[in-house]
Structure formats: structure tokens, C-alpha cells
């Protein structure tokens, strides 16, 4: 029984031939923006890596108040190459969220969110939110003093949301304060709730991408020019494999050379340590909150900042409807808004580190 025979048997029993035929027929247009097509599968690579390293860490991690930091210490000191598995998981999170942001910007500036890809954009934005929530919930799990302080600040921010704010904070914290219950809650959000959510939304996102086909640059669509194309399988997949190899190499090298340490144990009673800051992808939000004055008329500065951030989030979520004719004036405004947004985020992030 040859390998091809066994594989053929599987394909026959599961009815996979239509999928294989589709992969051969799927066209990937070749143009000067083709390089951005690689960002989506790179995110998938990092997600798989996070799942594998996450499961390995969860074999030894204890999500309770007494056990959490001791179990992470054990992973880093006793278990063979535990520090490396933790390092890959920590850097993998950074790489994945960075790639998601690059992916978002690529779609933004090539205006691939336009009709008929509005739902793809919206599910994609949800995936960005989920990725950042993964990062937020995972950051608390080592239960060291830096992550406790960052979580206290992070879970305090939803309080400023009108109407539901206090309720959201109480749900995140499992009460009014950050306690051992918060830790267990964040653990189950991190390993069960958000994985299920992200798989569901990711499935919709990927199916929609296949259904709509690869998006074309705006000019090509207007001129109705048929661009040269390559088949997805095997040509594009082989190129993707090359990119994956390089990304894996970079991730592993950085994980080996710049492995994270574990700060002293969190103490709910002691003052906040020096240098508290959230993960890099939250820095610009952190700084935005800091620049508003404490009191602005009848409301707090924090309230105004949170409302502005919420408005921006809603605007980005509904971007395809705010920009229905991307080749026209609204398209130019969206492009400039995007450039301004990137400059704002970068400047705010650097400012928060000074």
C-alpha cells in the first residue's frame, strides 16, 4: 500500500477532491501588492505555534493564587528547556499581533475592505480584538508584580465606559478587585473562551476569503484588467513555505537570544513597582488615557478618552460602510486617516516609554 494509495483512500472517503481541485484552480493575482497576500497565512503560522507552546505550558502551569508564579518558576528553572518554550510563547504573541496589525494596514491601504468584502473586514477586526485579548489575559498568568499592576490598570479602564462600565470591570476581575479569582478567570478566558471564539470567527473569515477570491488593487478593478495569476497550489503555497521558514527562524532566534525573565511575585498589598507598563500593543491606548486631564468639566478626562477610543473602534469596525466608494473622495480621506492613525499610534507608544 503506497503512501499515495493511502492518501487517495482518505481523499475518497472524506470527499476532499473538490477542496483539492479548488486549491489547484484558485488564482492568486500577481501585482506589486502581492506581497501582502502572505500576511494572512503568517498569522496562521503564529497562531498554531501559540497553541502548541500554550498547551505545553499548560501541562505544568497551575492557575491558582498559590500555585501560579511557583509553577512558572518551575517551568523556567526545573523543566528541560522550559524557559525556551515560555520564551517562544511570549515572543510568538508579539509576532502574531504585529503581523495582524501589518495585515490590517495592508487591507486598509489597498482598500480591500470594499464591497463585497465588508464582512471579511468585520470578522478580521474581531480577530484583532481577540488577539489583543489573548495577550491581555495571558499577561497576567505568571502572577508577577509587573503583570498584576498592568492588569489592575487594564481592568480599571472599562469602568469609564458609560452604562455598562462597572459591570464589565466586575466581570473581568471576578469582583471589585483583582484577586486570585481574577487569575483563574483570566486563565479560562485565555485557554477556553477566546480559543473557541477565535476558531469560530477565523473559520468564517477564511471561508469568506475563499468565497470572494483574492482581492485586486483598486486600479485593476476599475480598469477591469485581468492580471497575471499563479495557481494557489503548488506555486503560491511553496512561496508561503519559504516565508514561513524565515519567520520561524527569526522567531526562534529572538526567543533564544532575548528570553523573558520572571519578575518578583505579585503582592496584592504592596505598592505598584517602578516601570509598570502594558504590553507594547496597548502602549498607545495607555498613553492616550494619560494625556487627558483628570477633570474635564462635568466628566473625568478618562471618560472622554474612553468614549473617543470607543468611537474610533466603532468607526474602524464599520469602515467599509464609511467608505463605500474608495476610488472617490472618501477613499482619500480614509487613506490619510490611516496614515495619521499609524503616526499617532507610533508616537504615543514611544512617548509612553519615555
Amino acid at each position, binding site marked *: 500500500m503506497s503512501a499515495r494509495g493511502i492518501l487517495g483512500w482518505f481523499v475518497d472517503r472524506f470527499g476532499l477532491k473538490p477542496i483539492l481541485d479548488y486549491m489547484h484552480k484558485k488564482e492568486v493575482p500577481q501585482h506589486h501588492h502581492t506581497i501582502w497576500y502572505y500576511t494572512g497565512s503568517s498569522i496562521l503560522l503564529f497562531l498554531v505555534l501559540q497553541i502548541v507552546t500554550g498547551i505545553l505550558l499548560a501541562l505544568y502551569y497551575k492557575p491558582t493564587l498559590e500555585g501560579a508564579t511557583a509553577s512558572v518558576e518551575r517551568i523556567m528553572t526545573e523543566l*528541560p*528547556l522550559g524557559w525556551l518554550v515560555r520564551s517562544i510563547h511570549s515572543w510568538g504573541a508579539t509576532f502574531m499581533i504585529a503581523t495582524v496589525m501589518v495585515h490590517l494596514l495592508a487591507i486598509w491601504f489597498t482598500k480591500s475592505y470594499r464591497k463585497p468584502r465588508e464582512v471579511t473586514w468585520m470578522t478580521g477586526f474581531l480577530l484583532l480584538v481577540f488577539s489583543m485579548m489573548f495577550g491581555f489575559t495571558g499577561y497576567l498568568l505568571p502572577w508577577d508584580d509587573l503583570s498584576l499592576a498592568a492588569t489592575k490598570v487594564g481592568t480599571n479602564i472599562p469602568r469609564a465606559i458609560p452604562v455598562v462600565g462597572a459591570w464589565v470591570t466586575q466581570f473581568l476581575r471576578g469582583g471589585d478587585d483583582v484577586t486570585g479569582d481574577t487569575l483563574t478567570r483570566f486563565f479560562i478566558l485565555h485557554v477556553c473562551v477566546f480559543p473557541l471564539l477565535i476558531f469560530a470567527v477565523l473559520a468564517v473569515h477564511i471561508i469568506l476569503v475563499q468565497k470572494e477570491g483574492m482581492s485586486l488593487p483598486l486600479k485593476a478593478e476599475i480598469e477591469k484588467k485581468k492580471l497575471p495569476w499563479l495557481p494557489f497550489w503548488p506555486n503560491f503555497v511553496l512561496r508561503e513555505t519559504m516565508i514561513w521558514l524565515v519567520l520561524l527562524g527569526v522567531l526562534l532566534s529572538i526567543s533564544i537570544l532575548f528570553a523573558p525573565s520572571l519578575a518578583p511575585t505579585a503582592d496584592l498589598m504592596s505598592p505598584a513597582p517602578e516601570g509598570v507598563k502594558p504590553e507594547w500593543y496597548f502602549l498607545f491606548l495607555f498613553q492616550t488615557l494619560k494625556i487627558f486631564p483628570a477633570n474635564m468639566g462635568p466628566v473625568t478626562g478618562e471618560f472622554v478618552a474612553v468614549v473617543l477610543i470607543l468611537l474610533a473602534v466603532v468607526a474602524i469596525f464599520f469602515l467599509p460602510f464609511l467608505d463605500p466608494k474608495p476610488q472617490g473622495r472618501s477613499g482619500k480621506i480614509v487613506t490619510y486617516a490611516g496614515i495619521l492613525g499609524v503616526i499617532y499610534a507610533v508616537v504615543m507608544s514611544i512617548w509612553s516609554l519615555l
Partner: protein
Amino acid sequence: MKLKSSLVTRRNFLNGLFGGWAAALAATFISPLVKFAWPPYKEPDEVTLPLADYKDMKPGEVKMFPWGAKPGLLKKAADGSYIAFVGVCTHLDCNVVYRPEQKKFFCACHDGWYDEEGKNIAGPPPKPLRRLDTAIEGEDFFVRKPGAKA
């Protein structure tokens, strides 16, 4: 096309080379993860106990001591020497208990019985209870794996 004198075609040779190298790289990725996932916990070679806890035992008395993550059972024989057993049934790893009235060790899981010397006498246990060596040095009471160096 394959030359008559050649074992494989050039394509298969190169594909095999690539596949082999990729498989080797995948193995180097996976092996540390496998090592991480396989539990490193082992039984100790030796355990040190305070002699004070055990020197006042009466002959025929059995006391429990910790042997790593398992219970150990220390029995004082009639002549005053100590016998140490690993208090785990040789059938399916349940913890055994000493029944002083019957002078036997009993395993509740499947009704296994061992006599005072730890020999399996009734029920499913296939082997006698595992024995450990004992030694007294000053204030310390050592329990060791048989044959392990001090």
C-alpha cells in the same frame, strides 16, 4: 526519467534530499518539546528521616514514611531490625494498609493480601511488596533503594 543504472530519478533524489532535511529539522523542533512534555519526576534514590520519630516503635508496629510521592511502610521486626516496604500494591498501584490484628498488608482495590514479610499471599498481586534498604547513622535514619550507594 530514470537511467537504467540509477536507483531513482533525479527528481526523486532531490525531493528525498529536501524531504529528509525538512524531516530532520522538524525532529529538532519537536524533540525539545517532547522532552518538555515527558514528566521528569522520578522516585528518589534515598530518603533521610529523623531517627527520633522511629526509634520508639514497638516490635510488629508499622509506621508510614514519605518515599517521594508514594507512601513507604516501615515495620519493626520482632528482633528489633527495621524492614522498609514501598507501600504500593504490585497489582495496579493502589496504596496498601497494614492490618495489625491479622498481621497482614491489605489492598482495598481488588482485595489483595500480603503477609508480614510483604509476600503476596492472596488476591491478584503478582509480586511481593518492594523492599528498601534501611540504615541508621547517628541521628539520621536512611531508607535507600536496594543496591543504591549512600
